[in-house]
């Protein structure tokens, strides 16, 4: 066991620091008249040239194609974070579609989509769920028929995050109506800006509207905008789902959440004193930290196994639910610390009330959002099925497996 980075990586860290010293924040003369977004993007391009961002993306698709080295990646993230330098774009395209394309896409698809998607120039949304098909995703009904050189798509998707902003959707459609449920699905890429697609925002319990309904009425996409073969969409979607779950269940945000709780407890008052001085509050912070650190160190372990080409065992099936359980703990404790702040509508405007209620509203939003992430990407119960059946080897559910359908 060795948690140190060692000389090689400390040298590398110095290189990264020197790069950041020279380039971030940029000199004022170099930023004259440019938008913040342009400034950040210029910096990102330099970082890609130096081999610091888009490391796992091949050069021909706009990355810098470094050999996988999670230690270097960790050093880069640490150093960039320290000086608040822009990192690679996150979101649905870079995190879910790009890895799927790299693993399963055609050459021309990678050339066309990867470079622009990882730069945020192409925005994506994920068209999986339907009104009648959530956990039982493979029962989906949205249909795509090949007419000449085009797929013609009819049906409805729901809970589609960022559909309004997206240029494209990666979408599961039924293309082989006579095949068994799982074998009849294809993975299509669809341009969003066309008459056959109508997007309607869905208002969330938080008052915001990140997700949408998407109605597809004779929507069209070219014949070869399919990832994998006809009828292989289910398989392809498993690739994406794995990336989604690891994204949701990552331990990366734990430190931020804990620091947030500490700050909330410092400002909140209990028995006439700052809540952070209250013994119960202090214990609760440590209680949550126990879960967070377990999660974080388990991610070190999984990384090590991965680097050495070994399986992580049961742990590998647990990341999403371990992460969401932590979010639940954080949310509950935050609501408790908020006290009267828990009476506030999270989406309301605070101009008349000043700054403090604004913070409270953000926590109320997080309180509710912890439930959104427990559902998105496969519900907690579905995760429990996965752990119980594949992790512990308990008998498979007879209902859900009559046709192998649960979103596992």
């Amino acid at each position, binding site marked *: *066991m*060795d*948690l*140190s*980075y060692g000389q090689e990586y400390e040298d590398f860290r110095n290189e990264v620091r020197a790069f950041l010293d020279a380039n971030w924040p940029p000199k004022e003369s170099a930023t004259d008249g440019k938008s913040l977004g342009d400034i950040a993007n210029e910096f990102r391009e330099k970082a890609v040239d130096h081999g610091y961002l888009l490391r796992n993306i091949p050069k021909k698709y706009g990355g810098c194609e470094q050999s996988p080295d*999670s*230690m270097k990646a*960790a050093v880069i993230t640490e150093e960039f974070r320290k000086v608040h330098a822009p990192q690679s774009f996150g979101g649905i395209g870079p995190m879910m579609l790009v890895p799927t394309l790299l693993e399963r896409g055609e050459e021309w698809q990678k050339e066309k989509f990867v470079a622009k998607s990882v730069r945020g120039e192409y925005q994506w949304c994920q068209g999986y769920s339907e009104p009648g098909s959530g956990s039982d995703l493979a029962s989906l009904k949205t249909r795509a028929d090949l007419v000449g050189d085009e797929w013609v798509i009819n049906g409805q998707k729901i809970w589609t995050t960022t559909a309004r902003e997206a240029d494209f959707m990666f979408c599961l459609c039924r293309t082989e109506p006579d095949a068994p449920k799982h074998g009849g699905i294809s993975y299509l890429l669809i341009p969003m800006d066309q008459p056959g697609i109508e997007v309607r925002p869905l208002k969330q319990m938080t008052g915001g509207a990140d997700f949408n309904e998407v109605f597809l009425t004779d929507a069209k996409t070219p014949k070869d905008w399919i990832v994998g073969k006809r009828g292989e969409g289910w398989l392809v979607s498993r690739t994406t789902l794995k990336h989604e779950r690891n994204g949701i269940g990552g331990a990366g945000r734990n430190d931020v959440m804990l620091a947030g709780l*500490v700050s909330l*407890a*410092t400002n909140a008052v209990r028995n006439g004193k700052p809540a*952070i001085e209250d*013994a119960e509050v*202090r*214990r609760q*912070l*440590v*209680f949550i*930290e*126990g*879960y967070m*650190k*377990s*999660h974080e*160190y*388990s991610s*070190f*372990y999984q*990384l*090590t*196994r991965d680097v*050495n080409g*070994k399986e992580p065992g*049961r*742990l590998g099936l*647990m990341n999403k*639910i*371990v992460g969401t*359980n932590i979010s639940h703990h954080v949310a509950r404790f935050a609501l408790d610390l908020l006290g009267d702040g828990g009476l506030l509508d999270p989406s309301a405007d605070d101009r008349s009330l000043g700054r403090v209620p604004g913070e409270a509203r953000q926590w109320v939003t997080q309180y509710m959002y912890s439930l959104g992430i427990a559902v998105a990407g496969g519900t907690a*119960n579905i*995760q*429990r*099925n996965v*752990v*119980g*059946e594949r*992790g*512990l*080897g*308990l*008998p498979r*559910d*007879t209902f859900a497996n009559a046709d192998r359908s649960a979103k596992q």
Partner: protein
Amino acid sequence: MNFDLSEEQELLQETVKQLLANELPATHLREIFEGDTGHDPALWKGLVEMGIAGLIVPEEYGGADLELLDLAVCAEALGWGGAPGPFFGHSVACIALELAGSEAQKKSWLPRLATGDAVGTFAFGEAGGLWNPSEWTLVGGDTLTGVKLNVPTASLADLLVVGVAGGGLVLVERSASGISVEDMQGVDRSRRIDSVTFENTPCEAMPGDLAAANRVRDAALILLAADAFAAASKLVDMCVEYAKTREQFGVTIGHFQGLKHQLANMAIDIEPSRALYWYAAHAFDHIPEESERSAALAKSHISDRAMEIGRDSVEAHGGIGFTWECDVQLWFKRAMFDRAFLGTPSLHRDRIAQMSDW
């Protein structure tokens, strides 16, 4: 970065597990658990021959000179097998000698402890739930007079490392005058606890200070965390096995999603915490600035999880789970020991809060 066990560590763990699988079948464990001493000399001899007794004793004193992580992964394997006997007390006594003993004391005791010719233990606890070195009240000097409580396997020991006021440590030979040892009838009958009363008992001060005693305590916390992880994992395993064999309504009960989800929750609760005790054990030898805090975090978190899993495990077994006959109680009680020994989770959470920068 490399956060995984080495091949040697995996082999070590496997060898201990194998020894226990051979020498400690469930029926035999139960005999020991129900017996008078909670000890099986032949089993201890087998472990000693494997090198367990001197695992972390420095080479110059006849030990294998390994690290706390190596010892902790053994503790996990022993906990998994439900091993009775002096391992815990003995290991902590060895660590105390190494960290706080004088050269002469090390020379005189460590070689014998490493070969298992002598057995050690440590006496930290005092009435009123006082465990921490800074809280000890027993007055040191050339002789001791007073009582230590919850001393693990004192009746099996030749040497006691005793904590005294100010956070010092002293050595007392079991054969010294004025000692009486009484079985406290602890809940975990595989690791007995005794009260030890001293009356003008000759003792020998160790040069180590409060800081050394605190480090000995931290090592003990990590061994408890490893054992608690093992107890919880064993219980999950027992529940899963039971769910695959017990039938109700014409099917094995593992078919019922309510139970399946309970078992999944138990596994989800405990599995990630293995990394927590690994980290604490690694930090003990390699990241001194994090060592004290991470030892306390591992002990408080894992022993808490293990106890909850113990409760769930009884429930998952139905009526049989509540019986003396069912083996669930053996690991349930290990979890009780690991949770209470050296102080409850809340006690350590308070300490951790105090060590934090908030």
